């Protein structure tokens, strides 16, 4: 990132609710103009962290600066400089789209002379101009989301925070939201900080932090994170998968992971590996699939290990299964 001074900086953030630690020591730095993604399953601590950064929650320990301002010391000045798009809708659906924006402009003290111009500009940018005079209750889910993004940008924040901005939207709408976010970043030069639990979405980010059970388990560009997975992902099915697994380990020096009846392994180069696999194995190989690693694989690898290492309780196992299952659905 070009600017040396980070726009968002957090160190040692902790949030406790009674006995439960929702966030267990988070450090991060986000540079100017970055799209930074916070990726993790539900309940991992994403929303809690973003709420602390937006001054909606106070941390139990640690500190954070947003736009160079301490979030605990001076929340009002932080709020003036950030735009927020919440996980749950927060529009007045009796008012029209334009009226919702006007309300926001007044609340944030956008000067009268600029109010109209900026509202028009934001409506145009998010393609809502022709519906601006309709009541929000007639809007689709995607339009509401776009209106919320337009609203969040109205007071020209330095940073736009979005908590699960594409939750509950269909894939096409999600795609268009992303187009808009990229456009905003490019034309307005703002920094975007967002949370998501859609792995494929995290790929649009410049950098991603993977969070699990209140801690960041990995942080880097999507490519860097994918590089953490050995290279390519090879999955085979075999009618004698126990034999196949043993042979793969003995002959090819790779430990396959059992995944719903199939065997999955990470190899540096699938082009070389697959011919050897087929030649050396005596156990029958029914199917072979290979693909480039996705963030799903990264996530599975990172959180999967953690779970196995500490003999997790049933709840954690269920959570792991749930996230695995969700990862596979796509």
């Amino acid at each position, binding site marked *: 990132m070009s600017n040396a001074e980070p726009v968002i900086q957090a160190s040692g953030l902790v949030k406790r609710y009674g006995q439960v630690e929702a966030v267990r020591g988070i450090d991060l730095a986000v540079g100017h103009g970055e799209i930074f993604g916070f990726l993790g399953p539900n309940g991992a601590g994403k929303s809690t962290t973003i709420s602390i950064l937006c001054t909606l929650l106070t941390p139990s320990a640690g500190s954070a600066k947003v736009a160079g301002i301490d979030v605990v010391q001076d929340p009002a000045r932080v*709020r*003036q400089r950030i735009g927020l798009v919440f996980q749950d809708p*927060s529009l007045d659906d009796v*008012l029209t789209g334009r009226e919702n924006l006007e*309300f926001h402009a*007044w609340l944030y*003290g956008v000067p009268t002379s600029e109010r109209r111009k900026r509202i028009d500009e934001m409506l145009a940018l998010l393609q809502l101009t022709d519906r601006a005079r309709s009541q929000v209750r007639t809007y689709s889910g995607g339009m509401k989301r776009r209106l919320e993004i337009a609203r969040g940008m109205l*007071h*020209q*924040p330095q940073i736009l925070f979005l908590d699960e901005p594409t939750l509950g939207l269909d894939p096409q709408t999600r795609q268009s939201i992303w187009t808009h976010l990229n456009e905003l970043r490019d034309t307005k030069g703002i920094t975007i900080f967002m949370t998501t639990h859609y792995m494929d979405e995290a790929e649009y980010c410049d950098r991603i932090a993977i969070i699990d059970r209140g801690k960041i388990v990995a942080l880097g560009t999507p490519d860097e994170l994918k590089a953490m997975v050995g290279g390519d992902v090879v999955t085979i099915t075999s009618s004698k998968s126990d034999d196949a697994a043993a042979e793969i380990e003995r002959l090819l020096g790779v430990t396959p992971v059992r995944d719903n009846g199939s065997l999955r392994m990470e190899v540096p180069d699938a082009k070389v590996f697959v011919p050897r696999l087929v030649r050396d194995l005596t156990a029958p190989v029914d199917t072979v699939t290979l693909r480039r690693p996705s963030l799903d694989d990264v996530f599975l690898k990172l959180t999967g290990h953690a779970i196995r290492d500490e003999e997790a309780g049933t709840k954690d196992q269920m959570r792991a299964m749930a996230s695995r299952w969700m990862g596979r659905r796509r």
Partner: protein
Amino acid sequence: MTATASATTIFAPADTRMASLRAIYIIWYRDILRYWRDRWRLVASLAQPLLFLIVFGSGLGSALGRGTVFGAAGGFSYIQFVFPGIVGMAILFSAIFGAMSIVWDREFGFLKEVLVAPIDRSAVAIGKALGSTTQAMIQGLILLVLAPLVGVKLSFLTIAEVIPLAALLAFGLSSFGVALASMMKSLQGFQVVMNFLMMPMFFLSGALFPLTNLPGWMTVLTRLDPASYGIDPLRRVVLSDSGRPSALVERFGLTINGQVLAIPLEAGIVLAFGAVMLGIAVVMFQRRD
């Protein structure tokens, strides 16, 4: 990537008082806009007072007509007596309902947009209280057009007196509603407030019957009801135009220890009640969860 020359202008909250006034205005304005747009609510909220006026006024009126309090002997018919009470009822219900819409805003997320804004949160409580004050006032004043139907004549002077009194009552009860709403986190408490606060407040306010010659315990309760101090002056002003001797009007007046309270004193009590409630609401809103 290169930092696109920062188009971010920062608006220093130079004058926080101006910012608060702006916020109060826009929160008030939104309430009025919603009120205006939701015509059905407007109609529905007038239906209830109308029903009360017609059913109570005619039904009870004919039963009470021969008594000593109402009818020819008393100087006023029951429907004339109850009319200002129904105006007060309209104000009571719409003030509290209007203010409690904050709970809806909380439930449906809009409150978040307001609470995260870089404004003093007291503006939220004040804006909301003024918003529902305005709505309740309009609601009450609309009912005044029915005055000729019940044989009450209203001069412009009377209306000019009614407006500030209606505004005060609306303000006191709206502030009360905002204070209640600031303590409620979900819609579940709403029914409780309806049944255990609003209805008793209405019944004990003197809207339906004179607050004289009541059993002791009830006398105490009626005097504790803030709405009593708002409805009584409304009635005295509205009925003063009837051309009857003022002693007849005073007969209904709210008394403490047998003394009829002066209208300015009653107005002061309502205003003070509203101010205290608004203070509570402001404190509650400024707490950061």
